[in-house]
């Protein structure tokens, strides 16, 4: 028995909607008119809220924010495939996904203005707060998924998101391997937006696709057009179905593009050309999805206008609420170091409050 092939693998790519909104009828997912509209509304709200946040940041009314224009299909469509009782484990660049999961825009604004209080999702307790240490949230997804089966929640699944850059971290590898071995119901969705700050994909990895990394773990991997909401939805839906049926985890690579800066602290002109950005404009996920809805006859310019008006009103209200909010109590951090009252902490709280009191007296702060 000499040199023989012992295994073959192939990586597939899914495109359903082309750049003009033309759908491949054989692959068109089975989504109701309501769901399609809901998804488009979410993507639009995300786009508009993102733009407003950028604006606020530029005016000094918000801290550093990660903007996300261009990735709306890649992060909104997957949420449509989830139930409220499924878990969402995100990174930091999925505003629209979080809003779909019940997070209020007011809270997002609070968070990015330096208040931990904004991390609380009052409407869904199966959505984790944003995660900044790259890929470190992926093992959590595995644990949540394992726990769901442990507790005999027979069909709960976990959707985890992360960027192309995060795939280089050890935690990405450890989590996917762990999930595969435990047969944990997790959908690992990579937002491959081509860049990690200034670092282009080709410096991040030599593999031609992120999807093929699934082969290392013996799990399915697929690449989808991440600017096509239908492709993203369909791939996630299939992975969710497999996970619900205890057929294990899936890795999905959504190929998309970050149209703006990494965060408001970043200057993308230092590392990429306008041409590159322009080329991606033609692939805008919103334009394409709108064209599809119009072709389907379920959308028109009146509805569009109304949607934009509604989104604006919603955003205005959130900004208004955020800016008129009373500051939270200063000593809240002491409440959450431990779940028990500890002398060391309480002594420090007392000192902290005494100091604040004195400052108030002296008119400082």
């Amino acid at each position: 028995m000499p040199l023989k092939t012992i295994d073959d693998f192939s990586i597939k790519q899914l495109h359903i909607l082309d750049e003009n909104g033309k759908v491949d009828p054989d692959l068109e997912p089975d989504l109701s008119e309501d769901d399609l509209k809901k998804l488009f509304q979410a993507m639009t709200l995300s786009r508009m809220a993102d733009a407003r946040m950028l604006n606020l940041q530029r005016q000094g009314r918000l801290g550093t924010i990660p903007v996300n224009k261009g990735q709306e299909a890649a992060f909104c469509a997957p949420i449509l495939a989830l139930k409220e009782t499924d878990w969402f484990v995100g990174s930091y660049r999925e505003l629209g996904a979080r809003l779909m999961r019940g997070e209020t825009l007011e809270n997002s604004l609070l968070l990015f203005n330096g208040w931990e209080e904004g991390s609380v999702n009052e409407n869904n307790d199966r959505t984790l707060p944003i995660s900044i240490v790259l890929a470190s949230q992926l093992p959590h997804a595995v644990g949540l998924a394992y726990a769901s089966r442990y507790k005999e929640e027979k069909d709960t699944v976990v959707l985890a998101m992360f960027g192309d850059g995060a795939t280089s971290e050890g935690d990405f590898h450890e989590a996917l391997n762990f999930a595969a071995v435990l047969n944990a119901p997790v959908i690992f969705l990579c937002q491959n937006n081509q860049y990690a700050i200034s670092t282009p994909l080709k410096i991040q990895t030599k593999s031609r696709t992120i999807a093929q990394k699934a082969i290392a773990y013996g799990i399915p991997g697929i690449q989808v057009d991440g600017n096509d909401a239908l492709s993203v939805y369909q791939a996630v839906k299939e992975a969710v179905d497999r996970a619900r049926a205890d057929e294990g985890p899936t890795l999905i690579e959504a190929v998309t593009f970050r149209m703006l800066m990494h965060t408001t602290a970043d200057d993308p002109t230092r590392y990429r050309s306008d041409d590159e950005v322009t080329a991606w404009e033609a692939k805008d996920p919103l334009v394409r999805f709108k064209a599809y809805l119009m072709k389907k006859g379920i959308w028109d310019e009146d509805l569009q206008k109304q949607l934009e008006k509604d989104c604006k009103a919603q955003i205005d209200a959130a900004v208004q609420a955020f800016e008129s909010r009373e500051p939270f109590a200063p000593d809240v951090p002491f409440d959450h170091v431990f779940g028990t009252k500890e002398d060391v902490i309480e002594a420090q709280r007392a000192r902290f409050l005494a100091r604040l009191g004195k400052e108030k007296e002296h008119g400082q702060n």
Partner: protein
Amino acid sequence: MAKINMVTSLNTALHDIMASDDTVLVMGEDVGVNGGVFRVTDGLYEKFGRKRVLDTPIAESAILGAAIGMAMAGLKPVVEMQFSGFSYLMMHQLEGNASRMRTRSRGQFTVPLVVRMPYGGGVRALEHHSESKEVYWAHTPGVKVVIPSSPANAGPLLTAAIQDPDPVVFMEPKRSYRSFKETVDKEKNTFAIGKAHVKETGKDITIISWGAMMRDTIKAVEAVKSKTGFQPEIIDLLTISPMDVDTIVASVKKTGRCVVVQEAQQSFGPASEIIAVINDQALMYLEAPVRRVTMYDVVMPLFAREQLYMPKVSDIDQAITETLNF
């Protein structure tokens, strides 16, 4: 009550709590079929099965990370790091997530888990198997650090750690695993997270230690006692962080002298924090410098030399004697 060693004390505590609380599960490298390399998880796999006793891939970060996820979902994972020397691979999960999730989410998510890890020297092991790095964890807010010193407190403290609402790093002095036996009173447990144990009340000097050094410390005390008849107050710290400052300060105010014995390297070690709290609250009561007996600031030597470098009974004896005579 029969006398048992520390491994049995820990093992029994795990058996008991798993029998009574089915949200408790155990995970780590070789903890299942093999019962753990030190056999602390022996028999759990046979009794509770694969679902509750997980042999994991070798991936410390994912082990802790997955446990964090489980804890957020309402389970109480007890994670084993095979040796504390390999726990630094999960440092970022502990510092970046386990310790912060409560703060980050304003209590929406909490991480009640325990990370057990055998630590410390004296068992003729290979490199990375003999260090005492409790400070790494103790300097991390949101984490509790507990170190039992004997069979009598090991099991009860492990139980308390599992029931605690916060992440607890539970460091087990492997040198003490099988070196002596005690009875363990399950009925009236007096050990609690955050409380030091005053093992002996006295007026002449406060002697503080924890973990495996506790036993050497007691030996030294006995030796000095037999020579001088002094009355030491002996404190077994048990919880390193958050520290039981009140017990320490009250004792030093009474005795005016103090010796701290630690296996960790000297600089930036736990003794420094103890000295700092004494400085803060009892400096003017001190009749002698607080004496620290520690490992040197070298990379922990392999076993041919380790006995020369770890604090010895004679070092403690000398420190006590000199502090008494200062």
